[in-house]
């Protein structure tokens, strides 16, 4: 398998006054292209921090992060934005849809900052893919939680990213909606997109190719299916 990303000795600490919290403590990890990885661990173990660094929303204090053999740990804010634009799609636990935009416009946000032709067609395609084409003109508050998360996945899929980062995508959903969301993520991985998902659910983690367990900012175990 092609190696997609590689992190080694990655550290990140947060300081608040005199208190320092070590969110990531010299983590090393490799993920292959098209792999579906689940990150598990208790709250505060550093899963989301790792996801944010992998998605260029945050930068590490130390260590290396290589994406497709390019070192990206120490790039400028502008370069990180360009990498995010080029490679990454996000799915959040709380959906993070923009209330003032309708479903189609929310999905379109993912294409606005990229050079994408025929945006409308692409938006229609992904909404069809997640089964929400008939809800394109609705506002987020008019949808159920499961539907909102499917919109968020459509938004992540729209620019056809190489990497989807999902932070507890089923955390706010019931089991039926959770299963539907997992199906969409599995489909994406099956089409060659690398998916890294933070989850508390062993059931949903079982759908991944590999499960990495974290504790206190370190990787403490790994299960490969």
């Amino acid at each position, binding site marked *: 398998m092609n190696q997609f990303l590689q992190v080694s000795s990655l550290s990140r600490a947060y300081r608040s006054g005199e208190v320092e919290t070590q969110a990531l403590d010299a983590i090393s990890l490799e993920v292959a292209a098209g792999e579906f990885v689940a990150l598990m661990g208790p709250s505060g173990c550093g899963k989301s921090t790792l996801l*944010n660094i992998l*998605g260029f*929303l*945050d930068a590490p204090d130390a260590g290396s992060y290589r994406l497709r053999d390019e070192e990206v740990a120490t790039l400028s*804010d*502008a370069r990180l*934005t*360009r990498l*995010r*634009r080029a490679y*990454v799609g*996000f799915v*959040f636990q709380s959906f*993070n*849809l*923009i*209330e*003032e*935009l309708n479903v189609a*416009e929310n999905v*379109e*946000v*993912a294409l*606005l*900052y*990229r050079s994408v032709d025929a*945006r409308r067609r692409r938006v229609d395609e992904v909404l069809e893919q997640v089964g929400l084409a008939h809800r394109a003109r609705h506002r987020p508050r008019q949808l159920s939680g499961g539907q909102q998360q499917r919109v968020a996945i459509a*938004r992540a899929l729209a*620019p056809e990213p190489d990497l989807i980062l999902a932070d507890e995508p089923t955390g706010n959903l019931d089991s039926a909606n959770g299963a539907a969301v997992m199906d969409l993520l599995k489909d994406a991985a099956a089409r060659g997109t690398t998916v890294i998902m933070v989850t508390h659910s062993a059931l949903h983690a079982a759908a991944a190719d590999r499960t990495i367990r974290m504790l206190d900012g370190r990787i403490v175990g790994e299960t490969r299916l």
Partner: protein
Amino acid sequence: MTRLLRHWLVAWGRNLAANRLLSAITIVGLVIGIAGAILMALVARVPLTYNHIVPGHERTYIAISVVSGPEMAPDYQQASPGGAAALIEANVPEVEAAARLLEAEVELRRGGAAHRETIYWADPDYFDLVRLPVLSGDLASALRSGHGLVMTEAMARKHFGRADAMGETIEVAGQPMVLRAVIADLPAGGTDLDAGIFASGLATRSGLSLMKADEPGAFSISVRTYLRLRTGASAQKAGDAIQAAIAGLVPPPVRNAYRLEPVRIDRLALHEGFHPGARERLVIGSLVAALVLLIATANFVNLSVALAGRRRREIGVRKANGAGRGHIAGQFLAEAVLTVLVATLLALVATEWLLPVVNGFLETQARLDYGADPTLPLWLLSGAALLGLAAGAYPAFLLSSLPPVATLRDSGAAAAGGGLVRSALVTAQFAILIGLIIATSVVHQQRVFAMREALRMDIDQVLTVTAKCPPAFVAEAAKLPGVRAVSCSSESLLSGNTFMPIDWRGRQLVVDMVSALPSIFALYGVRPLAGTLSALPPRGEESVSGVVINEAAVRAFGFASPSAAIGQALPISGGAPGDAPGAQVVAVVPDFAFHSVETPIDPTLYLSEPPEAWNGGLVSIKLAGRDVPETLSRIDRLWRATGNEGPIQRAFVSEHIEQLYLSLERNAQLFAVFSGLAIFLACLGLVGLSLSAAQRRTREIGIRKALGASTRQILALLLWQLSRPVLLANLIAWPVAWWLMRRWLNGFAERIPLQPWLFPAAGLIALALALLSVGTLAYLVARQKPVHALRYE
């Protein structure tokens, strides 16, 4: 880019709709601030573009007459001696050309129709110098024959029924004249030319032809002399040369007091001599309009940041989806510009509606005429875009710099940051507000002082009738019921326009002269400080032997005290300067004057000449104050019954005083209006901020209440936090207001002291207004049940 703009437009519109109340507060504030700024800009534009219709106005001047002397306020007239133009053209090298206008009211007759019109008799080369825009005909040669006539388009239509009436004849002052050129209508209030008809000064019956050369003893200033200076010539040098050139025209007694000064025609509208207080009013108006716009902009910035706090999640999502700082900043800047543009369009509608009111109030002729000035919309829109960029810069910078992780993790209602800047802006707003309250109060107090205490005389219920003391009328008026006293004086009692140069112990003094019966002092409640009025004959004396002077004259003549002045001989005889020391000071009265307290009271001599010798007269009638309308009717009937010619010209002295203080009155009203706006805007902004803060802090309030805080304690906490910037504002406002108002008061010879209590009082008013604005809201938030507050979010 188009897709981004469209998307931004959608996001902007929906965010405005989603936050209707706060958006309305922001936009209403901006509309008020921008409308105020546009109105002031339009008003300021009139004097600043005065006479710009004349090409080369930068070197076109008018010669004005200035009469001044030691301890005497200069008197300005926009007129000059008839012979000055020729002398200046021949002898002043800086002057390229000179031409005259003489205003006259004449009859114009054509067919059976006759109209009385104000016209200008103009020198043949007048239009070489003042090249007004011509619509038809040859303006340069139009007045070179004795029959030449030039009219504005409106006047041509009025008298000939059409604008294109070239070659048509009309009788002007009894002589036929031919229309040789038609010029564009003169902008109302935009030029010193009021009449729209220019007739050749070469005409036989022209006032210029009939005018005799000025001779010593027949010195008069009646024409307008326009001058064009050579390119690069110094007006100062020209002024000095003019003085030398016209010296022969001016009689020796007034030569030292008289000066002919060139004044640029585009600066006439703001000349202190002709429009006292206009420049100050313009500066004050512009300043307070700018301050109100600043308050509105600060509101906009504050509320934008507060509103954007709710859009942190949106910012995070956009950043997670590839938006860079530039995209986010661009979006918020575009939103700010769009909001300001919408507010500007609404402000323009408000301006159209308010402009006539403002013109009426300020007596200006400002116009908002897009047709006449096609660049105006461009200027307005550019200004709006710039204001939008300036106002949006800080929120855009702040929001675009938010790290995406923090924005996605935090609650949607969290603050966007910039709390210090927001507090600083609220503090600045209230500092301006407190300053304006202080200024409004000081201007009002000075106005009341000027119109009452500073007069040092009793003008209550005093009526003046323009007449030279007709004996029958005066005698009978005194007997009318409702009349307490009647006395007479020359017109100069009110106008102060009669002055006399006096050689006094080797130096020349210029003193005001008032002829009056001795009873005038008692009528106005003025008592002598020294000496007695009883020595003066009640009906005046042919040869003046006793004179009353004021305190300013005591100082000007160098007497040690009022008492020391009594018995001193002054070189006056019968109102004309003379060498014989024929008049003795019999009494000294306090300084009182009917002119503005902006200028010091001039040294004044009150002569008890008989009314026949006066130059114009006034009958002063003190009314009892009861049944005033009936008394006035009786006086009117008496005027006719005692055989006086023409209708009675009467006015209350208080009206004259009010007219004097019109400028001060307008300043007071201007401050009051803008202070009201500032109060409204600042409170509006505070309400908006507290609304936003209340929503943001609902959770915190719930926690405090769950931990035992009472509604009163929460209310006190909220009000204290909102009051802090207001209290801090006093520290900035007090010293600045003190310095500015002291400076302003120093412009008055007679002024009120700056009361220290005014400053804390203004601070308390501002605090009370702030607490009133946010108190109800704070109370509602404070009394929420904790369970509700904790469930929020």
